[in-house]
């Protein structure tokens, strides 16, 4: 078998095992939280009778292990089950929200990844001169400010004062692609600012590291322009660390944007997960957790494979 196919299948198997472990861990942790879905739903208005009735209806009277394996049995057959609290089909709800989350993440990634790499290259080209310092200063500032604050500032100036974009990034099926892009402009912008710095700094560091190598000197002596040297000779060898950090940031764009979702009222996965944890809606928490874990594992796998493909020594092991 080709070593790469072997590696991918190994990783996939390991990934599945990890997912299983993650689901068990999430289930255990939600069980350990005080209270249950019945109490959370009834809140201050809980009477003992209503609690008992609701627990019975939700099936919370059965032992935890039974409930976990029932859920596991369902998910193996592709059935995510029903939400405990509002009885809606989880697969359908998650499908919509995951679609929204991926849409926002993609939009932010399409802007931020090329921009970060380009800025990184630019910073190397003019290292220790004013463009380098300016790029670093700006990106490090935006990453250091809490994202809700950037969000509020952007809303205040762009939405309330100038009225250019809506502060409510609500999208739905009846909107055209262009309308959707318009709606998510502000959150995508904020997310771009948030993830830019790490990718930019990593690109800069990885390439600077290589700039000392002998073959770079050769390229310079050949008379190539400065930027060509960086883009054509240094960058391909720096791909591995850059891809790693890019994947890490992509994963963040998918699983870590709950604050931006709340500020811009965006119907993504983050708010869905937070609400479900608050209401102890275990099947939904599990489903969200598994999706998030799968995204993380998947993106890391992609990073590994790309690193191998980008490195001839790993691609053709002796």
């Amino acid at each position, binding site marked *: 078998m080709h070593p790469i196919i072997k590696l991918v299948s190994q990783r996939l198997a390991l990934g599945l095992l990890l997912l299983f472990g993650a689901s068990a861990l999430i289930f255990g942790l939600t069980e350990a939280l005080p209270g249950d879905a019945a*109490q959370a739903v009834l809140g*201050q208005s809980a009477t003992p*009778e*209503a609690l008992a009735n*609701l627990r019975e209806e939700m099936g919370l009277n059965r032992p935890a292990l039974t409930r976990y394996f029932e859920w596991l049995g369902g998910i193996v057959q592709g059935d995510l089950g029903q939400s405990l609290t509002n009885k809606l089909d989880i697969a359908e*709800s998650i499908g919509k929200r995951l679609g929204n989350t991926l849409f926002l993440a993609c939009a932010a990634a399409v802007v931020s990844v090329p921009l970060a790499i380009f800025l990184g290259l630019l910073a190397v080209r003019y290292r220790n001169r004013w463009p380098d310092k300016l790029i670093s200063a700006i990106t490090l500032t935006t990453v250091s400010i809490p994202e809700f604050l950037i969000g509020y500032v952007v809303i205040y100036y762009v939405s*309330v004062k100038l009225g250019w974009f809506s502060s409510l990034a609500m999208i739905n099926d009846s909107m055209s692609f262009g309308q959707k892009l318009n709606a998510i402009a502000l959150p995508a912008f904020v997310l771009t600012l948030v993830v830019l710095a790490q990718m930019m700094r990593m690109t800069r560091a990885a390439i600077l590291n290589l700039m000392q190598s002998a073959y770079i000197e050769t390229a310079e002596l050949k008379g190539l322009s400065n930027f060509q040297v960086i883009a054509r000779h240094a960058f391909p060898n720096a791909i591995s660390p850059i891809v790693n950090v890019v994947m890490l940031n992509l994963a963040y764009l998918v699983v870590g944007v709950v604050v931006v979702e709340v500020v811009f009222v965006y119907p993504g996965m983050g708010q869905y997960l937070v609400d479900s944890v608050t209401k102890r809606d275990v099947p939904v928490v599990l489903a969200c957790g598994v999706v998030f874990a799968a995204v993380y594992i998947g993106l890391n796998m992609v990073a590994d494979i790309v690193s191998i493909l980008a490195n001839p020594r790993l691609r053709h092991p002796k």
Partner: protein
Amino acid sequence: MNEQITHMAGQVTAGKMTRREFMGKAAALGVSAAMASTMFADAARAAGPKKGGDLKFGLQGGESTNSLDPATYASSVPFQNGKQFGDQLVEVAPDGSIEPRLAESVEGSADAKVWTFKLRQGVEFHNGKTMTSEDVLKTMQRHSNEDSKSGALGIMKGIESMKADGDNFQVTLTEANADLPYLMADYHLIIQPDGGMDNPGAGIGTGPYKLEVDEPGVRHLFTKNENHWNSDFGNFDSVEVVVINDATARTAALQSGQVHAINRVEPKVADLLGRAPNLTVHSTAGRGHYVFIMHCDTAPFDNNELRTALKYAINRTELVDKVLRGYGSIGNDMPINAAYPLFDSTIEQREFSIEKAAEHYKKSGHDGSPIILRVADGAFPGAVDAAALFQQTAAQAGIPLEIKREPNDGYWSEVWNVQPFCASYWGGRPVQDQMYSTAYLSTADWNDTRFKVQAFDDLLFAARAELDVEKRKGIYSQMGRMVRDEGGLICPMFNDFVEGISNQLEGWESDPTQEMMNGNVSRKMWFA
């Protein structure tokens, strides 16, 4: 100038001039913006409601876990949803009287035990079926039967039997209750086809708007129900309830005109927000109150001297100023205020007094060990700050309070109604009887102060059966004094509903029962 303004107002009334035009022309005549705005509002009001437009709410209090099943309603967004697609039998009017909705009239027997609701005929559900007394009966059964999990279960307890009888729905009570119509106005009791027995979360009712889109925690879209039984209700083509849980995002959405009405304006920004030219901040005195509750049956709170000492040790005015920023009023250690019918305003207000607190504390003989007060931000907005202020003033009287901060998550199940001294809030009820029966009757599930006094219970039952208004008022006054002087409730303040409404909307009226004009914004307001 006056003539011209009058003429323009006439134009507005006739629907020939928009707000923008009016404001522009008024400004040209040298009328200040605020003045012109008032004039326009008066003129538009005179014109009466106009139909049309798409109303958008931006509301806090919605989660992705919300259901449309009225039995589960516990927060603002579900409450608002219910008011769009559903009707109760009766509604509490802004002035505290009972207003007919799906029942045309209500009649009680002489002993206030048997109540007959005469139902409106020809009312259609959104699924095309005609409402019958069977639907009403089944709705009430679903909220009151043994396996009910309804938020209205508590108020349905006193019912002995119910029956559907032609055009009438009849309730027989185990004990007399002159306030029964108020209980039937509860927002959970939306009449559903077949009582919602088969599909409680379908969102089908008789209300002025029909459900189009249901995305819990995101938005709920309703469109005009052309077949509503009252064509005066519901002036908009569509109503959208957008869930905006973040306070800053909510105010920004209102300011930039993306929504027309928001709830829970934070008191600290309310003044600033009110200065924006395109909206009005309405502050409505309600019956909701922020409280600290002590269990009267648990040491050291089983000692009334200690309870009284703590009541004197809290600076109510300071709390209203600092925690509510003036958007509220001081409480008097009873759950009732002037927003209730039959309130006795002559009950003496308890004032902040270090001397009296110290005196009662000394009499209580407390050993001086720290008194633990449990609190979380989720108990009420600003609860932690309120507790800190309380701690300071108590310390001046020599009472050692120790604040224990609890997580919001699980507060209502682990701390409230479990721990002997904690922060809490009450939303208030439409009538005194309901408030006292819910939380001060010896046998009440939510008797969160463990106030168990036989004489008080007797008075409560006596008041229910008393149809003479003056006598009832007297009984309630006596009960209020009992809770104030012997109860476990420290009630420093009643909070207002603070809401932001776009100036495009006309027809606002204050309603103390619930927020957003008791959920009637979409029924009663209109676009100018």
